[in-house]
């Protein structure tokens, strides 16, 4: 029987509740955003006692459905001040789903000056004081907990950045290889730090299988769905071979690769940091070019990157990180970028926000363009140790921009703009501007249709059709983020007609219900609207749905494109 577990850190109590009827049909982002919107005062301080940190596996998580093992984490974001949902792979989601935990809601702040850990089992949640692992990096936490509690233990942890409540701090999840996946964006690690929780460990011994109402129907739909994922060239071949980093060369060629803190759209060193080079390097050094972030992933876009001696450096080495520390900082040394990715995982800081931040920091003169060694030092010695400079850097791109008087600061709602220049890929600019999350490429990934010819083609350099494209993708994404599915199922879903109906059939078979495609679209719309309502009540207006001024005034090469949407055109987004 599914349940909701509440942990109150103010009085160190826990409570198990039945799932309210209104929440029964929700999972993942749909559930975290519903709970945050219902229970967190929108004007509260995100690091104060009124904020809540909510974890929810998706509707299909824990079932045999391919790629369904994502966990959503939600709260009011200390980075943006908006509602936030960030999802990640790893092993925790499937364990929570098997334990029947539809949502884990962490409330309040301890009165005592002490740190705690939570241990989740069939019997509920135990709160214990934690001293041993304070100040430790995430890799050390995982190693110590596997020794303390067993190899199979699921782990959600924060590093020093989260303990110090830096607004770019992420929340790390142990993956099947005892490495790290991240709830990266929006500073959720700081929220966990504010609640004085160093880690959450999970043991699902004795948990039953996730119940499926109609197993035969589920099996048929799951087979169709998996076939679509494997048949589509993007999810079936491109991603497992080159990872997401195949995009470096594509965006460079298309002139939309933000370079030198968004001053040009192409990077001379692109080939050295490209997916093609990375693939050769990984294969040559005995790493893995395909790898899944959770059990049941059949896309395998992740990889394991080794150094020249053949030793592990990092995994889940993503395009956004490589773009951000690479082109955006004029660094063409992939090995140094890999080391930086590892340090970011260890100290627990968002790899996208921190990459955008370094572009601003270089513009501010804190370090020189292209100086990867100083970047590594700043990560370890300043951010990792929480020095005054480290805290400014750990606050993300907006924080550094303010502290150093930089005017070219690529953020929306104070969240760093990722890897696609909105002037030359205009659809993604609409997503950055309007997303309830602040600048977030995953919220409505128009790159698929603007650049990759997936789901049709909408010319990236023209305004026509971009608002509608972003709207449709944001609605669909909000729904997909509620299923526990990896967002890359969208590639086959956009092109293969059987894919989306099979996904809906799996949900119907799991719960014995009969959702239609329209119901799923309406769910997506509903989620966006409750998130936006939270933001409005938190003080956000349509004037916050804007890109920074420099995008309008500084043309970007090679297309000499500017951001030319009027305010009224952007505001049309919410007309649904």
């Amino acid at each position: 029987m599914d349940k909701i577990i509440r942990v109150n850190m103010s009085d160190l109590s826990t409570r198990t509740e039945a799932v309210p009827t209104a929440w029964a049909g929700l999972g993942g982002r749909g559930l975290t955003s519903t709970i945050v919107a219902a229970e967190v005062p929108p004007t509260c301080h995100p690091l104060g006692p009124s904020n809540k940190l909510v974890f929810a596996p998706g509707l299909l998580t824990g079932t045999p459905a391919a790629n369904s093992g994502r966990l959503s984490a939600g709260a009011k974001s200390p980075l943006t001040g908006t509602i936030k949902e960030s999802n990640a792979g790893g092993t925790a989601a499937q364990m929570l789903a098997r334990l029947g935990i539809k949502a884990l809601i962490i409330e309040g702040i301890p009165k005592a000056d002490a740190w705690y850990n939570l241990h989740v089992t069939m019997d509920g949640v135990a709160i214990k004081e934690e001293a041993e692992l304070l100040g430790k990096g995430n890799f050390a936490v995982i190693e110590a907990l596997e020794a303390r509690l067993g190899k199979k233990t699921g782990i959600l942890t924060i590093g020093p950045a989260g303990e110090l409540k830096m607004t770019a701090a992420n929340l790390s999840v142990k993956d099947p290889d005892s490495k790290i996946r991240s709830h990266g964006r929006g500073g959720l690690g700081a929220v966990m730090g504010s609640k004085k929780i160093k880690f959450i460990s999970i043991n699902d011994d004795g948990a039953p299988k996730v119940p499926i109402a109609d197993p035969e129907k589920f099996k048929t739909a799951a087979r169709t769905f998996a076939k679509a994922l494997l048949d589509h060239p993007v999810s079936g071949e491109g991603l497992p071979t080159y990872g997401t980093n195949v995009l470096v060369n594509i965006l460079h060629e298309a002139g939309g690769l933000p370079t030198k803190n968004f001053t040009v759209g192409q990077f001379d060193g692109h080939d050295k940091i490209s997916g093609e080079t990375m693939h050769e390097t990984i294969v040559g050094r005995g790493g893995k070019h395909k790898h899944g972030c959770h059990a049941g992933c059949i896309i395998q876009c992740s990889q394991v990157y080794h150094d020249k001696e053949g030793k592990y450096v990092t995994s889940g080495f993503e395009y956004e990180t490589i773009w951000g520390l690479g082109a955006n900082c004029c660094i063409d040394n992939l090995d140094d970028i890999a080391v930086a990715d590892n340090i970011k995982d260890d100290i627990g800081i968002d790899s996208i926000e921190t990459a955008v931040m370094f572009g601003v920091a270089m513009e501010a003169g804190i370090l020189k363009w292209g100086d990867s060694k100083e970047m590594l030092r700043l990560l370890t010695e300043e951010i990792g140790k929480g020095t005054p400079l480290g805290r400014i850097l750990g606050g993300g791109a907006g924080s550094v921009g303010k502290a150093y008087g930089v005017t070219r600061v690529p953020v929306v709602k104070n969240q760093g703009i990722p890897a696609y220049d909105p002037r030359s890929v205009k659809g993604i600019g609409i997503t950055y501007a309007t997303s309830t999350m602040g600048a977030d490429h995953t919220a409505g990934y128009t790159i698929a249709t603007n650049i990759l010819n997936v789901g049709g083609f909408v010319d990236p350099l023209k305004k026509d059709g971009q608002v509608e494209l972003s709207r449709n993708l944001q609605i669909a994404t909000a729904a997909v983020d509620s299923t526990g599915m990896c967002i890359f199922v969208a590639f086959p879903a956009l092109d293969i007609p059987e894919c989306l109906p099979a996904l809906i059939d799996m949900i119907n078979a799991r719960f014995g219900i009969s959702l239609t495609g329209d119901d799923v679209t309406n769910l997506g719309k509903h989620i966006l609207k409750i998130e936006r309502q939270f933001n409005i009540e938190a003080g956000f207006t349509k004037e916050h749905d804007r890109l920074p001024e420099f995008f309008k005034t500084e043309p970007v090469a090679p297309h000499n494109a500017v951001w030319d949407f009027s305010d009224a055109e952007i505001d049309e987004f919410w007309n649904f």
Partner: protein
Amino acid sequence: MEITVKLFAMFRVGRFAAVTKRYEPGATPANITSELNIPEKEVGIVLVNSRHAKLDHRLLDGDTLSLFPLVGGG
């Protein structure tokens, strides 16, 4: 006329990353993919001078043609 042809991802395997060579005036991306034994249905993205183009686009002297299979990330 001279065209720079750039290949990416799986298209590079057994071929090349970039070459500049002479083609007949009026050549199209389709002529070039055919010469390279790349089946049309495997072509995902065609860029001419950093802009999306179709396979029947008429190339001009000095153009850069970038060819990608259907790949993606995010």
